[in-house]
């Protein structure tokens, strides 16, 4: 995958392939083109929530009605969602796909976010949340394939599943 905008197009393809009823998001600058694409989509209703924890609860409620929701957020918001992910989505066995954009690491310009972002894989592991990872090193075909597999894994395992996507060039 040569660059960020191609990764955004791969994310769009992946989400359209999953075809959820709802895309719930908290904005992130790197995936702005993805949010823009879904802002007026014929079959996927996209809407923002104010905070990541809500997103987990709203997605779970939607799932209980037999419909599907995908969450899109950045990893600095993962801390906001952990109580809901563990005590609700995991405890109640509610399938949920979270596409989580990586901050931190080389290429990050904000000195504060490293302190959460760098620990995110470890936090997810400690919480027992299955995690897939994608970066620009992965091919354009691997992105949608991995995200679709993660979605199905969430459904089959009846658990929340996270795909960490790193779009930093």
């Amino acid at each position, binding site marked *: 995958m040569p660059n960020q905008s191609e990764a955004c197009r791969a994310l769009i393809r992946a989400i359209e392939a999953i075809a959820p*009823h*709802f895309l719930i998001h908290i904005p992130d600058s790197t995936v702005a083109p993805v949010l823009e694409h879904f802002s007026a989509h014929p079959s996927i209703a996209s*809407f923002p*929530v*104010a*905070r990541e*924890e*809500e*997103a*987990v*609860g*709203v*997605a*779970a*409620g*939607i*799932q*209980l*009605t*037999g*419909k599907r*929701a995908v969450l899109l957020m950045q990893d600095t918001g993962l801390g906001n969602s952990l*109580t*809901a992910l563990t*005590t*609700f989505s995991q*405890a*109640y*066995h*509610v399938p949920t796909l979270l596409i989580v954009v990586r901050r931190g690491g080389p290429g990050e310009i904000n000195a504060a976010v490293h302190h959460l972002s760098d620990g995110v894989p470890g936090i997810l592991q400690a919480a027992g949340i299955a995690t897939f990872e994608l970066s620009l090193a992965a091919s354009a075909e691997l992105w949608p394939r991995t995200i679709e597999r993660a979605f199905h894994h969430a459904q089959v395992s*009846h658990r929340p599943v996270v795909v960490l996507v790193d779009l930093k060039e």
Partner: protein
Amino acid sequence: MERIEALAVIGEVFPEDPLVLTCGATSREMASLGRRANHFYVVDSMGLVSSITLGLALGLERGPFRKVVGVEGDGGILMNLNSLATAGYLEPSKFLLVVLDNEAYASTGGQPTFTTRLALADIASACRLRVWRCRQEGEFRQALGQARDSSGPGFINLKISPGNRQVPYLAEDPAILRYLFESYITAKTQE
């Protein structure tokens, strides 16, 4: 009213619509009145009931139910006030949140909450929810009936007395609680 009396009234007015019950004494006391397939017990995840209810209301916008009702405590909604803003922004027509406001964290020993000094109904109203403020059973029944029969997101604040009934804990695996409730929703939406 006591919490358990308010819960009995909610159960009566909404015998078939989905009810999402918050953690602590609320879920336990409702279950002690008799298990019902349309009741969903959230045994922890304090503050999440309004968001779960919002998700259900979005998913059931065109379903057979008149309302999807979240039953939350004052402490619980104070933990997720932004969910009121989200509900006001998205305007799901079937969303109804009932806050049983005893001005205390009753389940953890009765520590006072902010509602001793401020009104949640004012916050909900600022979030563009239709608001009812109740203190007595008669007003509460009327508010529930009006909310049930009208379209648009609603918020009922009922002042109740503090205290908890001594009733058994909910010991099931939450996965079973979810399975029972989800099966009910599925069956009703396929009818």
